[in-house]
């Protein structure tokens, strides 16, 4: 009975919440207001059904005896995968083969839409992985990350336009200049933490966009810069499809490089220092970790990837303007890191692909995109605040002989 009552309340509540969205529609042509009451009934019925099912599931779960396994010892799927080296290696090979074949499989002579979509998704994968270093590993919240991406994109656009530099020269330059900006931003905020850090980085992101928009003579203002050359391949002439596929492989290589570098760093002295700083600043400093140097390196490396992939972005799109570098994009990248699981490389990749590809293929629901996105975030934070993939613990090989020899000590 109580379940029925609760579900009913939830149904009514949702009917009330959905009132302005689903029921009232203003017809601006006839200056009328339409009242679609039938929608309201549907909302009520659906909310009631979902609530009832949830109550039912909860009741069943509490009725079931608690699992005998100690939750501390329960291993996640990812943990099991990580412990099984041959399996994870095979999986990695399968994924790489799939990624390499992908552009040829989904594109035909004229239609390479899917390849282009994938290129922009992979660009965000690199961005997510870069921000993962700053936010996920080192725990430094950055709400203006897209600014470094803009730095990279404009570096290439301006250098190619004014100095005729090629893509491959600009690629590392974009990364290095992004990194310089990372250090420049990093210095003043070394002492800040939490909310204050968030506000300063937010400000930095906004400043970058405003400067780009208003400095017409240098950055082309709101109109942006057009006619940015595509990446060149030994002077070969490529058609549209081949250009897209070429861009795809460039970003794919960047993704692979980012994954490689991040995972190497993560499991090294440097990565551990980042994590220690994230966990407890005072303790890590007292244990001999140089805070300034460690924080700056995290900022610089995060910004480096953004700058690098910014160059690819500019080259792939032929055109950039400040609208590609809004706060929404920063928030999106941050959402990828949080949804994927702070510090988890696989998690961030999955989250980035999901967040970029889903809206692209669900164009039919474009109106509800932000609604679904918001709901997803809320649900995620309630049911899985640690992100898609987490709880990974790295095991180290400590001299087996010693371990065996002292097995009986305790």
């Amino acid at each position, binding site marked *: 009975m109580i379940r029925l009552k609760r579900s009913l309340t939830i149904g009514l509540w949702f009917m009330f919440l959905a009132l302005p969205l689903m029921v009232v529609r203003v017809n601006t042509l006839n200056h009328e207001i339409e009242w679609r009451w039938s929608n309201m009934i549907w909302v009520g019925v659906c909310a009631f059904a979902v609530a009832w099912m949830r109550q039912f599931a909860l009741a069943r779960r509490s009725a079931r005896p608690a699992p005998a396994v100690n939750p501390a010892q329960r291993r996640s799927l990812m943990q099991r995968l990580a412990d099984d080296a041959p399996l994870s290696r095979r999986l990695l090979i399968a994924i790489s083969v799939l990624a390499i074949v992908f552009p040829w499989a989904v594109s035909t002579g004229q239609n390479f839409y899917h390849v282009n979509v994938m290129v922009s998704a992979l660009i965000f994968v690199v961005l997510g992985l870069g921000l993962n270093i700053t936010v996920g590993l080192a725990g430094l919240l950055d709400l203006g990350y897209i600014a470094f991406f803009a730095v990279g994109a404009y570096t290439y656009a301006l250098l190619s336009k004014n100095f005729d530099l090629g893509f491959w020269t600009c690629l590392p330059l974009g990364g290095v200049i992004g990194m310089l900006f990372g250090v420049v931003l990093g210095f003043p905020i070394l002492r800040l933490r939490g909310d204050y850090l968030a506000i300063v980085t937010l400000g930095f992101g906004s400043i970058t966009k405003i400067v780009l928009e208003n400095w017409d003579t240098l950055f082309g203002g709101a109109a942006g810069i057009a006619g940015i050359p595509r990446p060149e391949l030994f002077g070969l002439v490529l058609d549209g499809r081949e250009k897209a596929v070429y861009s795809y492989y460039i970003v794919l290589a960047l993704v692979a490089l980012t994954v490689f570098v991040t995972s*190497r760093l993560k499991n090294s002295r440097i990565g*551990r220092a980042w994590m220690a700083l994230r*966990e407890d600043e005072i*303790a890590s400093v007292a*244990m*001999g970790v140089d805070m300034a140097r460690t924080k700056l390196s995290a900022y610089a490396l995060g910004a480096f990837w953004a700058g690098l992939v910014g160059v690819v972005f500019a080259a792939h799109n032929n055109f950039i303007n400040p609208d590609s570098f809004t706060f929404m994009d920063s928030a999106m990248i941050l959402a990828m890191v949080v949804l994927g699981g702070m510090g988890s490389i696989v998690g961030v990749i999955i989250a980035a692909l999901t967040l970029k590809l889903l809206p692209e293929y669900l164009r039919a629901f474009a109106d509800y995109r932000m609604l679904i996105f918001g709901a997803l975030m809320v649900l995620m934070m309630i049911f899985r605040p640690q992100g898609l993939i987490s709880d990974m613990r790295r095991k180290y090989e*400590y001299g087996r002989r*010693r371990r065996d020899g002292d097995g009986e000590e305790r």
Partner: protein
Amino acid sequence: MTAAAKLLEVSGLTMDFGGLRAVDDASLTICAGEIVALIGPNGAGKTTFFNCVTGIYAPTAGDIVMHPPGAAPSRINGMKPNRITALGMARTFQNIRLFPAMTVLENVMIGRHCRTRTSIVDAIVSSRRALREERETVDKSYRLLQRVGLADVADEFSRNLPYGAQRRLEIARALATDPFLLLLDEPAAGMNPQETRELDELIVRIRAEDRLAIPLIEHDMKLVMNISDRIYVMEYGKEIAQGTPREIKENPRVIEAYLGEETHA
């Protein structure tokens, strides 16, 4: 232990927080191989004293001089904590400060940070130095875990450890920095008598094995009287007494500080 070399010399240390003088003209000397206890009622300024010595706070006045064995002495006032740790002074915290989302072994490995040199480039290309240091770090950390009896939970998250084990892990992590001075801030706080006894043995064993000098803050008088060579007593930021455990036990000022002033009935 007579004529032993001085390792740490603190003189006239004063620390103000705004108008509040938390530590007032405190002095302390620690010689090689000594266990020196710093005791006093709550709020006497003991932890502030430790924080000044380890560089968490920059003291208002006074001198703190470290004498690393076989190296020139250096004045460490206001030096950054990580530099002081690199010089050879490690510490634990009164309210445990581990890295909860890292494994027990990784916690100890952080202690090796200042004794290893692997750079970002080394780590990325997995250079020979990086591999060698990594192996040494793991082995050394694991051995330290064995010494404090935590080897079988090396791959567990440190937040999952019971309280007493967390305290021991903090000691192992501090030892990983190769210190010659180990500052323990209330190592027995919150421990039951059994755990306290084990800790007592652990501290004495560490001193014997590593020839460390151990300054410690502690409220457990039994532990203090058992293991300390000398005791300093603080009250309201001032040092009111020092001496051997026996002297301290009989010192009327100390008794007064602990039991409150005598009100003649």
